[in-house]
């Protein structure tokens, strides 16, 4: 489909060609509108997270400065940017060579195919472009009415809590559709029986007592507030904190945007890998001219470069996709393959199944980074890609390579990806100690919280909840309750 597009004629031609190739390969994407921007504009759009318009906030300025300085000193340059929207918008840097634009377009079609088809994005707002502009207008209006400082300070506090959302909630039903009415105390009746004389035997008193206790406990749990720990802390605050109307609106904006961006963080490796896989396929097999090969190779290898202390999602992703395709082409999966002990046999295993392409299209639909790594990161792959874990050695005062063992690497990687690399924190009680205080609990999984940050965040939480707030976590192996009452911090030991 043709759009009214600002693309210059030659880029327009390139776009049509690349789009054609992408469709031939079976990619299925939203309409994609490309815009050509100069470096200043592209830095701005990048700072805004890909959108041309966001609410006013200094942190966008911060990102803008970093991007601009990087560009000015020739250290970094944004090649590609695309947003999950229907139609999708993607940006090209004016000064790039045509071969780069080609590469970017191929890469972008990979991303858009992923946005459209991966299950993690199914719940995202595909009209986010409009929604973001809408958010900007709302926040601006509040700032005009109430003052820049007041609104911005509130946004700062909300952003501090931004990660306290339930990353799984769009995919699971957490609450019943029809909450039960509260009623009178339920009395245990036991099993029904017509025969009076049998009653004692069918429902012995001990059984009735136990049953009664169970019912009472259930009722007690229901009286608890929230009924079960609420991972979506922001939602809890929206529903129960004494916020003013504008505060409620701003917080809901922050929450909505956090949910919109979350799937991109949760599929980073897959998504970047997928786009890289397709740009390299489209470029090398179809789109490249002979004269462009050197530049292409240079920039492609730049994207895939690895540094010891950093994991390059492009590299890890594309290698995994290729590995999966290869394994399913050769049939290197399933019981027979897994049970094979011979290294040589495994190495030369090839059943010529040719299922690779089909498999990767299926995987791009139903997985996210966690399940992707969990299922497809194999021992051979870890060895082949020379992956290792690293950590800080207190004795030597430096970062060191720790292990190369497959299990440890996979475990660490999964841990980094679970819950987005964020601590699991949930509201346990909205009426703690029966004093209207808030209790949030950190589910400790081996790594302590950064304490100074936790205290400051607690302060921000308190400013929204108004009443004192408490955080329970484990620090250096011991259960600790941190409390901020609006004036000062205190902490005490607790049993976990």
């Amino acid at each position, binding site marked *: 489909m043709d759009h009214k597009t600002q693309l210059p004629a030659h880029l327009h031609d390139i776009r049509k060609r690349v789009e054609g190739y992408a469709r031939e390969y079976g990619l299925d994407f939203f309409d994609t509108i490309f815009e050509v921007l100069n470096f200043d504009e592209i830095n701005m759009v990048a700072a805004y997270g890909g959108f041309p318009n966001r609410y006013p906030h200094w942190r966008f300025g911060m990102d803008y400065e970093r991007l601009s300085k990087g560009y000015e*000193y020739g250290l970094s340059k944004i090649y590609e940017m695309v947003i999950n929207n229907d139609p999708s918008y993607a940006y090209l840097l004016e000064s790039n060579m045509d071969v780069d634009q080609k590469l970017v377009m191929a890469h972008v079609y990979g991303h858009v195919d992923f946005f459209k088809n991966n299950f993690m994005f199914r719940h995202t707002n595909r009209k986010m472009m409009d929604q973001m502009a809408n958010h900007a207008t709302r926040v601006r209006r509040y700032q005009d009415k109430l003052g820049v400082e007041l609104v911005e300070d509130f946004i700062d506090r909300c952003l501090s809590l931004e990660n306290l959302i339930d990353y799984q909630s769009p995919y699971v039903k957490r609450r019943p559709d029809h909450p039960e009415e509260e009623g009178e105390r339920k009395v245990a009746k036991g099993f029904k029986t017509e025969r009076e004389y049998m009653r004692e035997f069918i429902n012995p008193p001990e059984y009735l007592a136990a049953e009664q206790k169970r019912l009472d406990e259930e009722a007690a749990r229901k009286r608890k507030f929230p009924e079960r720990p609420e991972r979506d802390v922001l939602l809890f605050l929206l529903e129960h904190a004494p916020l003013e109307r504008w505060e409620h609106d701003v917080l809901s904006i922050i929450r909505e945007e956090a949910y919109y961006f979350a799937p991109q963080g949760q599929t980073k490796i897959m998504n970047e890998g997928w786009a890289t896989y397709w740009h390299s396929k489209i470029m090398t097999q179809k789109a490249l001219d002979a004269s462009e090969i050197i530049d292409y190779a240079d920039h492609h290898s730049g994207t895939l470069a690895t540094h010891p202390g950093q994991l390059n999602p492009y590299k890890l992703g594309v290698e995994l996709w290729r590995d999966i395709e290869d394994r399913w082409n050769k049939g290197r999966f399933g019981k027979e393959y897994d049970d094979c002990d011979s290294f040589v046999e495994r190495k030369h295993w090839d059943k010529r199944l040719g299922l690779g392409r089909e498999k990767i299209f299926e995987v791009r639909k139903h997985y996210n980074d966690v399940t992707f790594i969990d299922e497809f990161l194999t021992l051979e792959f870890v060895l082949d890609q020379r992956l290792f*874990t690293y950590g800080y050695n207190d004795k030597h005062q430096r970062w060191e390579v720790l292990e190369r063992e497959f299990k440890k690497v996979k475990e660490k990687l999964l841990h980094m990806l679970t819950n987005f690399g964020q601590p699991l924190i949930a509201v346990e009680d909205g009426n703690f100690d029966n004093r209207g205080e808030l209790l949030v609990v950190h589910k400790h999984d081996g790594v302590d919280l950064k304490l100074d940050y936790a205290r400051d965040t607690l302060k921000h939480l308190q400013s929204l909840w108004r009443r004192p707030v408490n955080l329970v976590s484990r620090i250096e192996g011991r259960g600790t309750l941190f409390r901020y009452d609006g004036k000062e911090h205190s902490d005490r030991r607790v049993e976990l």
Partner: protein
Amino acid sequence: MTLKIKQDHARFRDIVRGRIKRNLKKYVQKGEMIGKKGKDFITIPVPTIDIPHFRFGERSQGGVGQGDGEPGDPLSPSDGQQGSGQAGQGEGQHILEVDVSLEELADILGEELALPRIQPKGKDRIVATKLKYTGVSPAGPESLRHFKRTYKQALRRQIASGSYNWRKPVIVPVREDRRYRSWRQVPLPETNAVVIYMMDVSGSMGDEQKEIVRIESFWIDTWLRKHYKGLESRYIIHDAVAREVDRDTFFHTRESGGTMISSAYKLALEMIESEYAPGSWNVYPFHFSDGDNWSADDTRLCVDLLQNRILPAVNLFAYGQVESPYGSGQFIKDLKDAIGARDNVALSEIADKDGIYGSIKTFLGTGN
């Protein structure tokens, strides 16, 4: 088009400088990028503000990497989390810091001290002219002949007179066809300025005193440079006699001997009168001393020179008295009595390095 984000950016800069929202100041982190400028490595500061979140402690976390290395091998210093270690040792590479530009520095200075913009003296009077080619005329020197226009004119004439043959297109310009570039003189208002730094290098001025002068003159330079395109700096040192020196010598000379301030003023006056005609120059004499002059007679001579000759010719005369254990500090009192009321005089006493701040404000706060 100004971008929307410039507002956000300005706000961010203000936070980093601590002008607004001081509650965020403690989250400002000094990030940096390493760049290359010619052969030198440079670090480009990119401050970031890290809004606190519930998050894991960094050191207890670690991660997964890719590449060479056996268990126990260190990751190279630049890898991993930033700010995780000391700077590499013995790298043999010179890392310069590119901080804010001087222009930006001057802005910060101006904002901090609430300095008024300088009104250059006699802006309208100081005029340079520039030639600008604005059109063509039928008369002029051959060197400015406009070939294309001449050719066109000749072609036009030949076609009109019927002597043009398209089979044999020969064009012969005659005298009347010739066209010349013509020019106009455009007046360019220009603001030139000269700073004359004078320093007492007599035995009583120690290294600390000179350091103060050096710092202060740097800031004055920066500020004035923001306002004047062509700023010249001249340096005079004096003890009992004065002489002109280059910048380097100015800051590093240590002489001993007595002090005759009038000698410096005489030299400065000579300089102004011969090279910087007050009509076309903004002149800024700055004098630093510990305030210990040789004799009352010499002080009288100084006051006389200032009152009758120097002050009428300059935008601002500034005298900074650096406190030293030896100086009597009498000079500033004498000046204050004699000329303290004139509005192009700024006098300040600088007790120590912390005093520089206030002194700059006194000097540059006049807006002259």
